[in-house]
């Protein structure tokens, strides 16, 4: 269980985390989602006491992290892949971390096996690939068999097999009643792994809900309609609850009504339809619309067609 109250971090004039409050519940995988620079890493660093909050407090299992007598058995954290001296072997790194809590060689061997690092455990970390570095970071996080796991972009750099492994492991650990808190910018990954999602943008919590709620709330179901008579169709459908967004000449995205209603209206007016396709909103879409105003670095519409979809939708409304 992680509880943050009014957590704030400023670096000089810049506010990285702006008075956020949230609770991460045990027995679930909670995703922490947000664009780059939104404050995800800073928040996670404050949870384990690496950064000191400017204001507010964050506790893990009822106490600030540093007040725990045995912190690694309370929280395991993977913050950045490179939190390891490059000149040391994986085994020695884990031995050194384990020694602070009196954990023996046996536990080190266990986590090496769990993370599949047996063949490279004796090699110096400097030569590790990003994926192996991630595995080592996860191994270190698991050393204390913690009740709470905090992982910042855990699947970053992992091969597909590794991604699947992390997903399975997180689900399993949550199933054992542990608190799992992981950040990602991969919406698809969150949809598969998380039960609950916190969306952060510009240092503020934008959404705090279950995955299903977030999808339903912000995008709902839309219908893509292609027709040579798109303009007439828009006139026909216009209503207080219906939003029509022109996608391209001859294509309209309609929200707030169903394919059946649109089809019947078109038939009644004798309009030709080339396509009538209901689309369930994805987490990706809702994430984009939620964070559209909160991203720090906008790419130009030409460079990123996906990002441009959100602002144009705003305009059409």
């Amino acid at each position, binding site marked *: 269980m992680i509880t943050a109250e009014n957590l704030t971090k400023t670096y000089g004039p810049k506010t990285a985390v702006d008075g956020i409050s949230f609770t991460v519940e045990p027995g679930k995988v909670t995703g922490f989602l947000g664009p780059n620079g939104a404050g995800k890493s800073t928040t996670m660093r404050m949870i384990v006491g*690496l950064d000191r909050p400017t204001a507010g407090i964050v506790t893990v299992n009822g106490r600030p992290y540093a007040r725990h*007598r045995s912190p*690694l058995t309370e929280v395991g954290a993977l913050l950045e892949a490179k939190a390891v001296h490059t000149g040391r072997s994986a085994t*020695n790194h884990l031995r*050194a971390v384990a020694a602070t*809590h009196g954990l023996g060689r046996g536990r080190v061997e266990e986590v090496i096996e*769990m993370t599949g690092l047996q063949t490279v455990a004796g090699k110096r970390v400097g030569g590790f690939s990003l994926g192996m570095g991630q595995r080592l970071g996860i191994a270190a996080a698991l050393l204390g068999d913690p009740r709470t796991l905090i992982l910042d972009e855990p699947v970053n750099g992992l091969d597909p097999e590794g991604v699947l492994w992390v997903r399975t492991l997180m689900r399993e650990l949550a199933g054992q009643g542990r608190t799992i808190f992981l950040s990602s910018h991969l919406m698809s990954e969150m949809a598969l792994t998380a039960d609950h999602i916190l969306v952060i943008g510009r240092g503020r919590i934008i959404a705090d809900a279950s995955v299903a709620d977030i999808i339903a709330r912000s995008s709902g179901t839309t219908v893509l309609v292609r027709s040579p008579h798109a303009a007439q169709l828009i006139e026909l459908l216009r209503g207080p609850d219906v939003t029509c967004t022109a996608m391209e000449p001859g294509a309209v995205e309609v929200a707030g009504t169903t394919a059946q209603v649109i089809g019947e209206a078109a038939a009644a007016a004798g309009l030709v339809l080339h396509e009538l396709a209901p689309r369930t909103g994805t987490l990706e879409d809702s994430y984009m619309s939620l964070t559209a105003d909160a991203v720090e670095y906008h790419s130009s519409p030409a460079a990123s067609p996906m990002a441009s979809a959100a602002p144009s939708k705003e305009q059409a409304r």
Partner: protein
Amino acid sequence: MSTPTTAPAGAPAGATAGRPGATHRVTFARVLRSEWIKFWSLRSTVWTLASTVVVMAAVSYLAVFFTAREAFDPVTKPEDVALLVALLRDPSLVLTGADLAKLVVAVLGVLIVTGEYSTGMIRSTLTAVPRRLPALWAKALVLTAVTAITAAVAVVLSWVVALPTLHAHDAALDLADPQTRRILLGGVLYLVAVCLLAFAVGAIVRLSAGALAAVLGLLLVVEVMFRTIPADFFRNVSPFLPGTAGHQLLATQAGIEQARATSSAPVLDPWTGYGVMLAWVAVLLAVAAVLLRRRDA
């Protein structure tokens, strides 16, 4: 890489023998053990220790060998001979290499802490020991112990390799003499203090290049500058700078008397000088400790 997908089944909560529990508290002894493992699992530290010993013994041997050769060279002028023989009988000649060895231990002291910042290891260290200060003290303690032993080996080796030459010229060190013992022990204590000074600066500056520049700049440039600029301010401050003050522990009483006779500036007694150096170390370590508590890692 083997197939990790099969592994999670045996994962944490499986209450195996190694399962961590309430007994796994962070204690200072455990943090010390962790720092000990860290110290010995880096090749660079082991190499640095070895080179300290080799550099010191080699330079000391060269100093003794050439002083002896010069002293007993028939072409040397008689008035110089007396001076050279006196130099040969000075126990600190055997520690000539300490001046070079101090640079090696300074580099060790800096890198042992800045290396954690440059690689990101510090985040693992402080996550495991979130109270932070035990990690700093444990690291300093390991460094002190290892440097002391290494310096002792270097001093003994320097003495041993010089022994045949000194013996041949009837200048063998008298280990029963308290002054000789003080100087030999001083070689060890001086190197330890230099290393801790560098460690404290490393912990304050956190960047390898900056900390190395600060420490080596102080020992090699600033202190020499203060010693050589003929103005009262520099002359009066010079004896209290850490390297200069601490080095008094390697000076003979005769040398100190002579310096007092020829200079108007203060000349510190051996242990007073070393005390001044330790005060520098203590203050810098205190600053490092306060900053470690306050700063984001």
